[in-house]
């Protein structure tokens, strides 16, 4: 079993002195689904954004797919990693001025220098897989939130990444739309994709996660398999959080 992401003692502080990451150590194996939970501001977003170089580190060692991304990494490493790591945001961040198809094929054509036709063919396959083939020629603003988020997933998948990162992919969606997106992610996990998912969807975590990691104030509080975590969390802090989540 190979290790996809290995982080050792990551530190990241913002100018105001906030320690968003305060010594985070973790490993994500290939093919594994890791769900990250924790209260707002606990550093979840910051953590997964370091995995593709969207945030620079102030300390610690980070190794993603064999490439080192620690404090001293250069421009080149980051670009190399980004082609192999897909990311999906809370705000779907589709490009509003491009059609759905163009959103998906932009990076394959410009970054991977793929032929337009083959890129589009692959895009249609992915849209099919996401169940929104008929939306290909529309623009993002014409789609519902759930559809947009599925396009965002397809866009990330178009580069054939080895790891997918999800930052609260359903939290900007209408309650009714959440299921569509989670279903797409479930399918992805079943296909063996390595995934790191920040989410508060308990049922998803329970069902899909291989491990659940709970963070607070930039630190890892506990990492357990979902069963243990949800029924019998080790730490008091985690239990309090879970309790609040279920009102």
């Amino acid at each position, binding site marked *: 079993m190979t290790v996809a992401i290995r982080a050792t003692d990551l530190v990241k502080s913002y100018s105001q002195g906030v320690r968003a990451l305060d010594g985070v150590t973790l490993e994500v194996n290939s093919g594994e689904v890791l769900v990250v939970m924790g209260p707002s501001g606990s550093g979840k977003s910051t953590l997964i954004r370091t995995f*593709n170089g969207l945030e620079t580190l102030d300390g610690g060692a980070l190794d993603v797919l064999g490439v080192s991304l620690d404090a001293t990494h250069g421009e080149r490493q980051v670009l190399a990693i980004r082609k192999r790591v897909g*990311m999906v945001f809370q705000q779907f961040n589709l490009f509003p001025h491009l059609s759905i198809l163009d959103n998906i094929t932009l990076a394959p054509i410009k970054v991977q220098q793929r032929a337009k036709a083959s890129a589009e063919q692959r895009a249609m396959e992915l849209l099919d897989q996401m169940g929104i083939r008929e939306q290909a020629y529309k623009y993002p603003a014409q789609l519902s939130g759930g559809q947009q988020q599925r396009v965002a997933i397809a866009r990330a998948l178009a*580069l054939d990444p080895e790891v997918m990162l999800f930052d609260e992919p359903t939290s900007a969606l209408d309650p009714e739309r959440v299921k569509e997106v989670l279903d797409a992610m479930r399918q992805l996990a079943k296909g063996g994709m390595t995934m790191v998912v920040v989410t508060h969807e308990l049922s998803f975590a329970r069902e899909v996660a291989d491990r659940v990691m709970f963070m607070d104030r930039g630190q890892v509080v506990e990492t357990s398999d979902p069963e243990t975590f949800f029924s019998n969390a080790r730490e008091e802090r985690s239990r309090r959080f879970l309790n609040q989540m279920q009102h």
Partner: protein
Amino acid sequence: MRQRRLLVQVGVAAVLIGLLALLVNNLAVNLIRTGLGLGFGWLGRPAGFALAETALPYAPSDSYLWALTIGWLNSLKVIAAGLVLATVLGVAAGAARSSNNRLLRSLAGGYVALIRQVPLLLQLLFWYFVAFLGLPSVPIGGLIRLSNQGIQLLGLNLSVEFCAVLVGLTVFTGASIAEIVRGGINAVPRGQWEAFRSLGLGEGLGLRRIVLPQALPAILPALTSQYLNLAKNSTLAIAVGYADLYAVSDTTITQTGRAIEGFLLLLLSFLLLNLLISGGMAAFNRAVLGRLNRSR
């Protein structure tokens, strides 16, 4: 409810019309009192003054109307050139302000901070009397020749007055455009930068393909008003002896004493110019937005 609305509107209209009538009445009384009268017959009379710069053939024996037309063309010339150059300078400076080169960035910042806080009129006087009239006569290569008599550029012969007004307007407007461009780029949500970065797209490509197209709708309206400002500010050319529309009007009014008629003509010319510029920009705007908003 409806009656009250109607009453308020009739009231407003009555006050406005009354005010206007009062002013017009005063004007009529004053015109009769001072014997100024109102008429446009003088437009056909010979102007009797020479103009230094004429886009079309003109002699002092031509009519005032023709002199004004020449002035209008001169205005148009400097405005058109100014629009292009100010846009280039502004976009360059705006981009420089978010450049990675620190010196370039602070220089662009300094340019904006300095230029925007000094009156344009003063800048024009400086460009003309100090910069351009202070030029020594230097040929640069065979194609460009600088002197305080004029600039020869690839066979094009430009007067120093024209150059001073052009440079003054360009530098002044460019600073405002730089701010607009920077603001437009900043207005594109951070998420868009992150999205293209996480797809492995480089900064330059992302700026061109993702950020600028989205910044454009925010930039265009403000850019239009800067263009209009440039056109209006071109009237300050009078301070440095460039024979633009306002300068010719000014001479005409002095010679004929036809202040009201002259002013009306000036007003109409500028309304026309405004329509031209904002009409052109609106068409461009539609073309751009049409591309961006096919979704809506």
